[in-house]
């Protein structure tokens, strides 16, 4: 077996050193009735590289890859072009096959990268500090709600109807067990967000208000009023960003008064990958630093006075604090954070702004073209690179019929909000820099055909 270097002679020599007659002697603590006498049933024997690759190639061919077709899906995961050097760099063995940097003297590469990553995320979000990553946007969102409860010592969180329904679903799952109260609702298929309702709902029991920016329908709105009302009542504003590229074009939530900003970093450097691994971003005001979840990298000096980096404030964390930790998270998304950071460095501020401008322009062009399809109307007044169309009929079968015509034409809201007769006509369309004018035309024509 190609991954196992011991030879039969090595094994014999080692058993002799140990003083064991056979390998079974080393498994003596396992009760006999729990030991399998032979190989696992049903699993074939070892296989060559070529055989394994062939098996996967056949399966991969059964999937419609985004890059091979006109592609317009978003809702929390976006297809962007990733520069070739990003994937090259994250595959360097020194990054790929390293562990969490517990021994900082021989992990400065990972640690300095994390320090840079934290700074990039904090600045992008308009916050003071950021952590070294969470699993993904949805878990970062729950961690933010959970942190707000610790900070305010209140348990009622108000979730905007514009928050990604899967993020809401996760929060509901957790809240059932922790006893937190969540106020949730589904969005209307309209240009108006629910900010009036949110403002009315914030009271002295509220731990936080959670608002997605841009929201699940792609709508954008100034968060300042919600921030002001939350602060007036002693609550926190948690902003959720599922499309970080947007922040190259629009103001950061931190600038508008958000106390905690969390989100998905997948758009930058990390591919679609059918939902994971992604990278959760978590940033907040400096005063909450000791309540933050997850790893933090900090600057320090070594015994010779040279600048260096270490994991720090670990008394918040499970391996020190155990049941009193701020979170149970251990492994996070280090390599995806590297991909994010590398891509962000390649972009720089100039590139990020240009990329965002291109996304917005393409989306505006697409929206203008698609709303001309008979029966279709554009729900949004504002949007960045994603908007919602109202179709004359249920969107789910339309999406399937589009796929039959080799167009991946957006996410039907019926899939995200099952059983909602208003939302089921909604189709959320994302348009990034990878979309060509021909793709938009192909989508519009196919949509016209399907709706006819």
């Amino acid at each position, binding site marked *: 077996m190609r991954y196992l270097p011991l030879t039969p002679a090595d094994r014999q020599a080692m058993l002799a050193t140990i003083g*064991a007659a056979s390998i079974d002697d080393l498994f003596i603590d396992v009760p006999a009735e729990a030991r399998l006498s032979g190989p696992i049933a049903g699993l074939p024997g070892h296989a060559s590289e070529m055989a394994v690759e062939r098996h*996967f190639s056949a399966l991969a061919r059964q999937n419609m890859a985004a890059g091979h077709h006109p592609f317009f899906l978003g809702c929390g995961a976006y297809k962007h072009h990733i520069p070739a050097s990003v994937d090259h760099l994250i595959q360097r063995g020194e990054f790929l096959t390293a562990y969490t940097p517990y021994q900082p*003297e021989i992990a*400065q590469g990972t640690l300095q990268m994390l320090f840079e990553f934290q700074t990039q995320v904090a600045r992008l979000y308009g916050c003071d500090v950021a952590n070294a990553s969470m699993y993904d946007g949805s878990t970062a969102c729950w961690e933010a709600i959970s942190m707000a409860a610790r900070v305010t010592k209140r348990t009622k969180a108000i979730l905007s109807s514009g928050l990604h329904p899967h993020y809401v679903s996760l929060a509901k*799952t957790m809240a059932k067990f922790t006893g937190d109260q969540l106020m949730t609702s589904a969005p209307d298929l309209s240009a108006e967000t629910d900010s009036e309702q949110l403002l009315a709902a914030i009271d002295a029991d509220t731990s936080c208000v959670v608002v997605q920016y841009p929201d699940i329908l792609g709508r954008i709105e100034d968060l300042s009023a919600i921030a002001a009302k939350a602060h007036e009542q002693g609550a926190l504003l948690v902003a959720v960003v599922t499309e970080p590229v947007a922040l190259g074009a629009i103001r950061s939530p931190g600038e508008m008064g958000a106390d905690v900003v969390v989100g998905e970093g997948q758009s930058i450097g990390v591919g679609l990958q059918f939902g994971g691994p992604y990278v959760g971003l978590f940033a907040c005001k400096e005063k909450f630093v000791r309540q933050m979840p997850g790893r933090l990298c900090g*600057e320090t000096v070594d015994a010779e006075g040279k600048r260096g980096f270490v994991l720090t404030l670990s008394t918040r964390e499970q391996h020190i604090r155990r049941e009193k930790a701020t979170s149970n998270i251990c492994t996070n998304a280090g390599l995806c954070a590297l991909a994010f950071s590398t891509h962000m460095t390649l*972009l720089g501020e100039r590139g990020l702004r240009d*990329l965002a401008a291109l996304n917005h322009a393409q989306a505006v062009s697409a929206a203008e073209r698609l709303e001309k399809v008979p029966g279709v109307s554009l729900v949004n007044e504002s949007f960045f690179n994603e908007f919602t169309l109202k179709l004359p009929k249920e969107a789910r079968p339309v999406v399937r019929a589009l796929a039959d015509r080799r167009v991946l034409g957006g996410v039907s809201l019926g899939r995200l909000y099952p059983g909602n007769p208003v939302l089921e006509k909604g189709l959320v369309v994302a348009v990034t820099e990878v979309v060509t004018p021909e793709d938009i035309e192909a989508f519009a024509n196919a949509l016209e055909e399907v709706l006819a």
Partner: protein
Amino acid sequence: MTINASGWRPEVGAGVAESAGTYTGNRALMLEEALIFEIGDGETTGVDIAAPSAVKSRLAGLERNRPIGIPGLSEPETVRHYTRLSRQNYAIDLGLFPLGSCTMKHNPRLNEKIARMKGFADIHPLAPRETVQGALAVIHELAHWLVTLTGMKAVAMSPKAGAHGELCGILAIRAALEARGDARSTILVPESAHGTNPATAAFAGYAVENIPATAEGRVDLAALTARLGPDVAGVMITNPNTCGLFERDMKALSAAVHAAGAFVYCDGANFNAIVGRVRPGDLGIDAMHINLHKTFSTPHGGGGPGSGPVVLSEALAPFAPLPYVERQGDTFLLIEEETVDERQGKAFGRMTAFHGQMGMYTRALAYILSHGADGLRQVAEDAVLNANYVLRSLDDVLDAPFGQTGPCMHEALFSDGGLAEGFTTLDIAKALIDEGYHPMTMYFPLVVHGAMLIEPTETESKATLDQFIGALRSVAMRAKQGDPLLKSAPHYAPRRRLDETLAARKPVLVWKEPEEAVAAE
């Protein structure tokens, strides 16, 4: 005997070579690297982006009106920056990485290639199911082998890492208890458990109580049984445990827990020791997470991503979270909120936005298929053999607290007993860095004083182990003799010992312009 493969022999005992300073601060291949904030700027970019067509902005008047502060570098500078950083890292690709509990084994590159196939890497989690049948087939196939290898009923695939899997398992236990109207308040956790175990139980809303270990390093079954009662929801056991020992009484323990109406959670971090030889399902376990990034070799990536599918017993299987994949004839179904209602499912909810770590599933499945049934069994055997070889080759020079009671499983545990006054596990670890190794896990498990937990894994050759044993023996002797140079190790790493107290006392977590930093003080 040559000390290293090139045949070059360092002058032993020459002490620290004081190197002459250089103009750059570099030392030949050891290159210093500035922060991107010090070398990049806001106008430099390493990408070429087409100019947008002129459109009417729809940004609600919220256009950015202040600089973001994100520096850019050209592509050559970017490649050089991260390449230089990478060289300051230790990694499995460079050498033995014997971190106990972490299973740092070789990461096959075939798995990287497969994960990057367009049909897996470039598909959207909300794409119509008809267009992603091959991906759902991969999830289903991996799920099948995880269930088969563990002898369990079902598996929840979506948890994102080990601790997330623990949370999934504990929530399934809680959902099962609540479904039978049995609210319970407490989870029992052995003292030797990973910190994630008590943190997870608390995160799920339970009180946590510790169960002591016996002098032999195993769970005290009598103490555990005595504590069981109507308030105990479950017990979290690690097996093989964090002392590297198999919990011999596991079946009796499970029976006692079940008799008390509670459930057994098993931390599967150490599954590598028994994969293909023992099925946790045969030990009475109700839920166990599997770290795909440990046993099934998906890369650790400097701290993730991981993946923590949770296998479940018949009692817990109905409560598995959404979404999950089911096979119906030749079609793979993805069961989400909309379909689950029709099925009157008992799923306790959703743990993440999408389906979990697809990129890890492809890698783990490639690993399983590459090894096959014979290879996986050999994995466990070689992992255990390598650990026992390390244990027996060093137990004359290092204190092995449980070494007298029998073999270990996949990791060898030593304590700091017998070191010279003032010398610690930390000194040994830092000296190993100078010898070209990543140190073992230090000060864990907590039940052993100055613990050194060594997990060599099965992907190390005998020659590599012999060299490591020689190095650790040499360092241990120096620690026993009180060699003062150990106290200042490492001497040859990119950095000397770092001031962690300073980092925590005055946290600097983001870079600030020098004048800004001064102004803030």
